[in-house]
């Protein structure tokens, strides 16, 4: 699924990395616990989270996660945006809750591995 399409489905605001919206992903991971995220390794994955701190970007960097979507209208702080730009990670924010955001993407066909 194209990142640009994901932004549409979630009615998300793209905060940085708008030049990468043509990238395709095949799986999603929704969690506020970064160690749980790191237990789930797959290629071409997006992260949905309600957590706001620099280690969210670091976790994505270590795992080659291409895009992070902040749920419940949360917005990343400047240092996160700066690091995400440096690492070519797309950041988006949606007003939807974690449950609804994951549900919409799953319904639209982003199912990944179980």
């Amino acid at each position, binding site marked *: 699924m194209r990142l640009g399409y994901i932004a549409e489905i979630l009615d998300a605001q793209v905060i940085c990395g708008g030049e990468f919206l043509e990238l395709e992903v095949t799986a999603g991971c929704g969690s506020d616990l970064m160690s749980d995220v790191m*237990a789930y*390794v797959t290629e071409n994955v997006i992260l949905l989270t309600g957590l706001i701190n620099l280690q969210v970007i*670091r976790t994505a960097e270590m*795992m080659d996660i291409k895009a992070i979507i902040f749920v419940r209208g949360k917005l990343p702080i400047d240092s996160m945006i700066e690091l995400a730009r440096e690492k070519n990670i797309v950041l988006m924010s949606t007003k939807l809750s974690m449950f609804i955001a994951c549900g919409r993407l799953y319904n639209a066909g982003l199912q990944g591995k179980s």
Partner: protein
Amino acid sequence: MGTIRLKYDIPANDFITAGEASSNVKNKLTQIGLSSDIIKKAAIAMYEAEINAVIHGNGGYAYVEISDYKVVINIVDFGPGIPDLDLAMQEGYSTAPDNIREMGFGAGMGLPNMKKYADKLEVFTKVGKGTKIIITVNF
């Protein structure tokens, strides 16, 4: 290629710089041209160990050796040590305080994740002295 030796300080309780050493090692491994799977294994295992040293270990240092066949990552801290290593190796067991959980860590997956991604994991720990983690990832 000769052996590359890298050393980093890991400052205590500093969540801004936490992960910089792992990021730097990931960049080095990428420059060498290893496969993304191997790089990810080493990066995640080291990052978990680095975060642990920040959270639990009062900081310490990382010493990394990259040779033709493997990367060996030593994370040494001078923290309280791990009283029951078997318990700490169990998924979900954590002694992290609430402020760490609010940061998205302390899920009790640190050591289990290191074990999962390292080809070899060695843990040397002594209560009151500190902990040394040695992560080996083969190329």
